[in-house]
């Protein structure tokens, strides 16, 4: 039989452990959402068009920069966050029309080309910022409290937005006529064209959609970090790792890959010293890829 005091102590410990678990789960979920948000656009363009967009990190940067411009000119940050995907969609469409479409026949050249585009964007923004780091406050700062636990409001917004965006993108690609056309022109461009589908227009749309997702990601995450020219670069390598891990050609693959990479990157520092955690993420991912070279999801394109 336990005495009353021991019972209380026991349940107190259980509570602490539960608190710890909930907090850890939230932290992992929040960072994973950031990862997924960034990978989504990259994954869509890679899976749907077969283009590995090395400028994706800089599209994220431009999304963040759009918010910064709004903030600087005295407009509300909310407006900047809403505008960023549209700005980036236009930018992506223009870029696809002028440059990217010349690369479809040569995916390797496409990597170099998009890398060059990214470099130009990054260094231009670095010049415009004068090399400084800029802070952009969250539209909804602070925390909300449940029990003894504090949860960051903005991270919660990011988690919810990510879930909504995943659901919406998935519905768009699998349940709408435009999604069907996109998938069709991927599967067999010649047949799609003979059915009267304007494939070049669809490629433009898809690329613009991927760019818009990058812009949204940049706009949402910039309050968590500082705006600097390298904000996208930080995530680019892990984003590519996510796509590789999840498998190219599906919509779910990169999302799953990003979830795995994000959770590992945020969770490992609890177990090993932080300097080791970073390379360890890559080691684990590479080992998985060794045994599942096609990624988590091996079926054909969506």
């Amino acid at each position: 039989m336990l005495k009353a005091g021991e019972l209380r102590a026991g349940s107190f410990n259980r509570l602490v452990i539960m608190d710890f678990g909930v907090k850890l789960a939230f932290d992992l979920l929040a960072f994973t959402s950031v990862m997924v948000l960034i990978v989504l656009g990259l994954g869509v363009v890679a899976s749907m068009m077969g283009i590995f967009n090395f400028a994706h990190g800089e599209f994220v940067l431009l999304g963040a920069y759009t918010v910064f411009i709004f903030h600087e000119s005295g407009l509300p940050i909310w407006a900047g966050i809403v505008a960023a995907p549209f700005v980036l969609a236009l930018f992506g469409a223009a870029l696809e029309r002028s440059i990217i479409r010349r690369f479809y026949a040569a995916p390797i050249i496409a990597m170099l080309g998009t890398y060059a585009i990214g470099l130009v964007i990054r260094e231009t923004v670095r010049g415009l910022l004068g090399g400084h780091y800029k802070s952009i406050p969250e539209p909804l700062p602070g925390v909300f409290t449940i029990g003894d636990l504090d949860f960051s409001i903005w991270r919660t917004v990011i988690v919810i937005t990510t879930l909504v965006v995943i659901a919406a993108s998935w519905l768009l690609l699998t349940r709408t006529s435009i999604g069907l056309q996109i998938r069709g022109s991927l599967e067999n461009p010649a047949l799609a064209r003979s059915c009267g589908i304007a494939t070049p227009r669809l490629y433009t749309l898809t690329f613009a959609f991927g760019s818009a997702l990058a812009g949204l990601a940049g706009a949402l995450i910039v309050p968590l970090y500082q705006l600097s020219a390298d904000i996208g670069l930080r995530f680019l390598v892990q984003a590519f790792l996510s796509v590789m891990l999840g498998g190219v050609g599906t919509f779910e693959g990169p999302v799953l890959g990003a979830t795995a990479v994000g959770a590992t990157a945020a969770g490992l520092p609890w177990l090993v010293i932080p300097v080791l955690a970073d390379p360890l993420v890559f080691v684990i991912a590479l080992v998985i890829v060794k045994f599942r070279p096609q990624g988590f999801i091996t079926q054909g394109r969506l």
Partner: protein
Amino acid sequence: MTSSKEEKSASGAPARGLSRRQLLSGASALSAAGWIAGTSGGWLLRPNWANAAGPIKMGIATDITGAIAPSGNANWQVAQFAVEQINQAGGVAGKPIELYLEDTASDPKIAVGNVRKLIQERKVDVVLGGITSAMRQAIKDPIVNRGRTLYIYPQLYEGQECTKHLYCTGPTPAQQCDELIPYIINKLGKKRFALPSANYVWPQLLNKYARKVIQANGGEVVFEEYYPLDQPEYSATIGKIKDGKVDCVFNTVIPPGLQPFVKQLYESGFQRNGGVLSCVYYDENLLNYHPAHEMEGLYSCLDYFQSVNDPFSAKLQEAYSKKFPDTKYLFTAGSASTGMYRGVKFYEAAVKQTKGDLAREAVSAAMDKGKIADGPGGGAEMVPGKMHCKMNMYVAQCKVDAGKTRYDVISKANMVDPKEC
């Protein structure tokens, strides 16, 4: 001569509509703004008056472009500012100072070549500059050993640089820790320290010294941890801070990992629950790095804050903003600017001592006993044989008024010993 030649070549090609000089000045303006790596030519600022006695050639090697460009440009502006004041007052021992700039481009590999240019082609009498420790390590040998030239390093740093003819004019770990940490432990009553740090040499050596001071004052280091410089996620660290009942975070995480760390720390309620955040490289440049509420209450310790109550410093700030109105490169302590000013003034004082003799041994011997009466935050005094200087140190706290951040100076320590070498 040269200018008339340039005009001729410009008028020789009127169709272009852009003279070579315009093009050049445009390009250098771009490079000064951090747009392009203008590493080919270097820069020369010659005073207006005649130089019968032969000018003093002062080389500035700093990061005009690249990641540390904001600090580098501030350094270059402060050097121009200090030298202009000296030249206007008649130069040093009757000689004017000529400034030569080479961009070290935030990249030690590029820097070594450019610094060699200062030494071999320009034949400068002294080099000032370098901001990061990696940069100092890279350029000190080409300057001091192979170049046989005096070198002055202006940035606050981790200490242990005891090369002959290399003088450090920024604060050392002892100067930054000896005032701040006892203040936190004894006055604020915070005893459990966490040392989260970026993984490179400055935090490692600074922490080593800080740990000694913490323990000597009866405090305790709960954990000391190093992160990749751009780590974006710190929940594990925040967890350790909470579990370890840490009440003072002595931060040496630097951008870009800095913002997410400070934000997560704030969101965890650390400050709200009485925790103290301190960070010894925070100057006025960093006031806008975080939203105001995250900055509130932060403690820093530097050789100068703009709110320091010192008439000479106030005059200095005023003259600086007059020369560079609306500049985004501030005259602050954390960006090596105060060290740059001190370095130029120490050199001036030394050459006055030698009566215009610019030979390295002579100037170095005078530098070793150098003293400057005034400067940002007060005067400074070399500790003979140690190549480091005593200076006033200030503990300051960040306050927020209607969304605006500022530092309030809390205490001043006179002529703190660098305790190096």
